[in-house]
């Protein structure tokens, strides 16, 4: 029963979710319902006040290092260094992730930023910034994708690219948890839907479940292993 308290307010009161590998789960909920808190807990940016969660067997509280290896967080804030060029940013990410330097070039290629690789990020448009953080995700190749409103101000090719990356991750046995308002864009990839209201999570029957394998998700504590 994962919970996180800010001061007094239980932002998450007992979220239980078990995500099987190869599954992309869509998460909807009003603003302030704790969606991004859940993501930030899963990627070890926040410590849970109560309860546990494990990502592919790695417990977020006791084994944060293993979790960080497995989890990629795609947030609305790109979080890149404006004084560095696109290539320098991604190469820095590759070094920090222990990935080969060459992976930076191919990631920029794939996200269509090869032409601006040596330009400083300061002048980039918001769409280009999103591609840059997607490139960072490509270098990382995490097994669990945590996507926070990924489709916002992303053009059509960008959305297609993002869904490709999600499918590739599911293909190699990874999973994705996508916090989203724009349900339509996520429809092609998401096969389960959940809603989060008032810090509590429940399988959301309201949204038609378009998943090819409608597996019933037991409402186990988040301590259920995502495998």
């Amino acid at each position, binding site marked *: 029963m994962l919970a996180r308290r800010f001061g007094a307010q239980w932002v998450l009161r007992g979220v239980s979710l078990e995500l099987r590998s190869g599954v992309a789960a869509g998460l909807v909920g009003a603003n302030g319902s704790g969606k991004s808190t859940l993501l930030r807990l899963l990627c070890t940016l926040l410590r849970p006040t109560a309860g546990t969660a494990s990502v592919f067997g790695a417990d977020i509280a006791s084994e944060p290092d293993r979790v960080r290896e497995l989890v990629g967080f795609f947030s609305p*804030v790109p*979080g890149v260094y404006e004084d560095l060029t696109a290539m320098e940013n991604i190469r820095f990410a590759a070094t920090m*992730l222990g990935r080969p330097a060459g992976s930076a070039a191919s990631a920029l290629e794939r996200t269509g930023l090869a032409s601006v690789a040596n330009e400083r990020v300061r002048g980039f448009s918001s769409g280009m910034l999103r591609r840059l953080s997607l490139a960072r995700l490509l270098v990382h190749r995490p097994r669990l994708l945590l996507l926070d409103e990924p489709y916002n101000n992303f053009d059509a090719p960008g959305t297609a690219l993002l869904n490709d990356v999600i499918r590739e991750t599911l293909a190699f046995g990874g999973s994705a948890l996508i916090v989203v308002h724009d349900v339509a864009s996520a429809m092609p990839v998401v096969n389960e839907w959940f809603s989060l209201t008032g810090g509590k999570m429940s399988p959301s029957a309201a949204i038609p479940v378009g998943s090819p394998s409608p597996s019933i998700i037991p409402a186990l504590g988040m301590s259920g292993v995502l495998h």
Partner: protein
Amino acid sequence: MAFRDEWLRARAVAWKDLMAERRSKAGFNSVAALGVTILVLFGFALGPDAEAIRAAAPGALWLAALFAGVLAFNRSYQVELDGGALEPLLMYPGARRSIFAGKLLANFVFVFLLLVIVIAVSLVLFHITVPSTWPRLLLVVLLGEVGLVTLGTFYAAMASRSRAREVLLPLLLFPMLVPVLLAAMQATKALLVGDVMHDAGAWTNLLVAYDVIFLISTFLAFDYVIEA
């Protein structure tokens, strides 16, 4: 194996900080200018009498490095805070002390360049003749700088992320720096006159002890600081 990864990560963090600093140029020039300004002010404060200025030179030199250095410490986290890059940095796997090590390295290089300027200017302004013991003096300057940069980078990790950072960093940092500054100033003073009293050695050993204590304690504490 793990140590090599941590070193690679630390070096990458240091390189990133220094590159961002070099690109924004304004940073170093303004900090160096401040250091020189402080030296000049010391000259005015202590009056034209050469003897008085020469006696106060060690103190002036280290205080100029301190006040100018404080600006550099807060700035070193600004590169993360401006672009919201702190969270991605915290999400890379690997021990977080490599982030601290990287920032430490970058600040050490930055403050070293600052010290080169401050020392050169003070040699001129304060009519200091380079003593025969200058190698030991260089060692003391480096050891003093290690203490300054270690504590400065550590406390800036907190101050840079809270309100009124310009006030909070000096308030947290200066009292903690008293032992390091005291030892550095005394050793510098002794060595500037050729260490006739032979007490520079004692102060230098003290400086080494302080650096070790503060390096160990800040490396252990950094994980808690950066986690919040």
